C-alpha cells in the first residue's frame, strides 16, 4: 500500500508571530520556518506503517513556494521514499490545497493519506476533511491511534468528550493529533541520503487546478493586550483580591 503525506512549511512553533506594522499580514521575513508539527507526526506514522510492513511506499507532498523543498527534504530524511512539490507563489488556501492533493491522489492512487489535523499558521483545520470529501473517501480526524488491517483503518480519535473509535474503509484520509506518536529526529546519514531521493516538481496548472483564493484578507491586527497584572505575596492576599477586587469568587 502507498501512503501519501501532505506536509506544510510554516513558521517554527517556537517563534511568536508578529503582525506587520501596515496590518497586511504576519511578518515572515527572516523568521525560522519548519515543518508543521502535526505533519511531522503524520510522516512518523507513515514511516512506522512502512517499518511494520503495512505500507510499501511513503510519498511526501508539499504545496507552496520553492522553499517548501526544504520541508520535503526533511520528510525524506525522516524516511519518506520520494517527494512531490506543487510549486506556486499564489497564497494557497485549504480548498485549493485539497484540490491539488486530490489531483495527485487521482494520479498516485494511495490507499491512505495522513495529514496533520491543523496547520499552526492558518489554524484552519480543514484540508484533510476537504480532501476526503473531494475524493468521496471516508475520514478519521484527530487520530491518536491508527491500526491498518484487512483494507480498513481502525482509528481512535480525540474528541471534546474523550475518545471515539471509528473503522473506516480504505482508501481514506486520516488527520493526526498530538498524541499519535512521538516523531523521531533525522540522523545526519539520513539527511545526506535524503539529498539523493527523488523530488519532483509540478505546477497547479499541470494538475488542472484553479488555486485562486476565495477569501481576501482585509487586515491583520494584533489582539488586545492584557493589562499588566500584579504579584500577590501570599494566598490570603490572593483570596482577598479575588473576592473584593475581581469579585469572581464568593
Amino acid at each position, binding site marked *: 500500500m502507498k501512503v501519501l503525506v501532505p506536509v506544510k512549511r510554516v513558521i517554527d512553533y517556537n517563534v511568536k508571530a508578529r503582525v506587520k506594522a501596515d496590518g497586511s499580514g504576519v511578518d515572515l521575513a527572516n523568521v525560522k520556518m519548519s515543518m508543521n508539527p502535526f505533519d511531522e507526526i503524520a510522516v512518523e506514522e507513515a514511516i512506522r506503517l512502512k517499518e511494520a510492513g503495512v505500507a510499501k511506499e511513503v510519498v511526501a507532498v508539499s504545496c507552496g513556494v520553492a522553499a517548501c523543498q526544504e520541508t520535503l527534504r526533511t520528510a525524506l530524511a525522516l524516511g519518506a521514499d520520494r517527494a512531490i512539490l506543487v510549486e506556486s507563489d499564489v497564497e494557497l488556501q485549504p480548498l485549493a490545497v485539497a484540490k491539488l492533493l486530490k489531483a495527485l491522489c487521482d494520479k498516485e492512487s494511495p490507499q491512505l493519506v495522513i495529514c496533520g489535523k491543523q496547520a499552526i499558521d492558518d489554524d484552519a483545520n480543514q484540508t484533510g476533511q476537504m480532501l476526503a470529501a473531494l475524493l468521496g473517501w471516508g475520514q478519521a480526524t484527530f487520530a491518536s491511534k491508527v491500526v491498518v488491517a484487512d483494507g480498513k483503518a481502525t482509528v481512535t480519535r480525540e474528541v471534546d*468528550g474523550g475518545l471515539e473509535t471509528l473503522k473506516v474503509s480504505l482508501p481514506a484520509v486520516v488527520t493526526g493529533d498530538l498524541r499519535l506518536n512521538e516523531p523521531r529526529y533525522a540522523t545526519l546519514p539520513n539527511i545526506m541520503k535524503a539529498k539523493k531521493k527523488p523530488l519532483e516538481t509540478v505546477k497547479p496548472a499541470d494538475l488542472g487546478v484553479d488555486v485562486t483564493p476565495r*477569501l481576501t484578507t482585509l487586515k491583520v491586527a494584533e489582539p488586545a493586550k492584557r493589562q499588566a497584572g500584579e504579584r500577590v505575596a501570599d494566598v490570603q492576599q490572593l483570596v482577598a483580591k479575588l473576592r473584593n477586587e475581581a469579585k469572581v469568587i464568593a
Partner: protein
Amino acid sequence: MPILVIAEHDDAVLKASTRNTLSAAKKLGGDIHMLVAGHGCAAVAQAAAALDGVAGVKLADDPQLAAHTAESVAALVVSMAAGYSHIVAPATTFGKNFLPRVAALLDVAQISDIVAVEAPDTFVRPIYAGNALATVKSSDAVKVITVRTTGFDAAGDGGSASVAAIAVPPLGATTDLVGRELTVSARPELAAAKIIVSGGRGLGNSENYHKVLEPLADKLGAAMGASRAAVDAGFAPNDYQVGQTGKVVAPQLYLAIGISGAIQHLAGMKDSKVIVAINKDAEAPIFQVADYGLVGDLFEVVPQLVAELG
C-alpha cells in the same frame, strides 16, 4: 435568504456550543433554521425550537445518522444546502470534523473559528495561535463558517419555533463507529465553565494532579483543565487540554497551576476574565498574562488556598 445552523447534541441533550453558534448566526441577518441531525433526537429538536432566535427547526431523525459521522452529517447538509446564504456550526470537534466536507462539496471556502462578524461576508478569526486577528472577506456564494464559542454569548430560551421532520435521503456513508470512551465527570463542562482549575507538568504525576487540584476544584465548583504536557504525561484525559490545539476557554476565573505559559497554551485561555498563575519560577511567561501572580511551590500554596477559601 435564510441561514442554516447545525445543532451539536448527543441525541439527548443540546450542547451549550449550539447557543453560542446561534448568537453568531443572529449577527448575519436572515431567518435562522436549525438542523438537528441524529437518531432518536426528537427531544433535542424541542430544545432547539425553544431557543431565542430560531425561526424553524429541521429534524433529521434517521438510523444513518446514529453515529453522527462526518460523512453522514455532511452528506445530509449538502443535500439541503440550496437556498441558504450561510451554513454555520460550532468550532468544536463536532463542527471541525464535518463542516469542511460540506464546504468542499459545495466548492466554497470554509471560514474557521470566527470570533466576530463585521458584515454578512466579512469575519474576524484568530490565526497563528491567536497572536494575530485576521479580517477576511468571502467571495463565495454560500458562506460556510465555524464559530469559536468563546467569541459569542450563549443565546437564551424564549423561542417557540415549529419542528419539521425532513426525509433523509440515502447518505452512502460507510464509516462505522466502534465505540466511545467518554470522560465521566460530575464537574461543569470545561468549555462552558465559570471557573477552571488547570494543571501542568509542575504537578509531577497523575496522583498529584488529582490529589492537589481536586480539593480546590471542589471548593470552587470548577471544571478541571490541563496543559498539553500534563495530558501527554497521562495526568489528565485528552479532553482536558486547553490551548491552540485543545479547547479554547474564557471563564470568569482561570487558575494556571504549574503551567509555564507556552504560546500554544496561552492561545486557549488568554481571553479569560481573570487569570491567576501559581508557579515557582518568577520568570515563567504565564505571569505576563496573569492578573494575579503568586510565586511559590504549588504543593504548599494550593493546600493553603483550599484552607483559606474555608
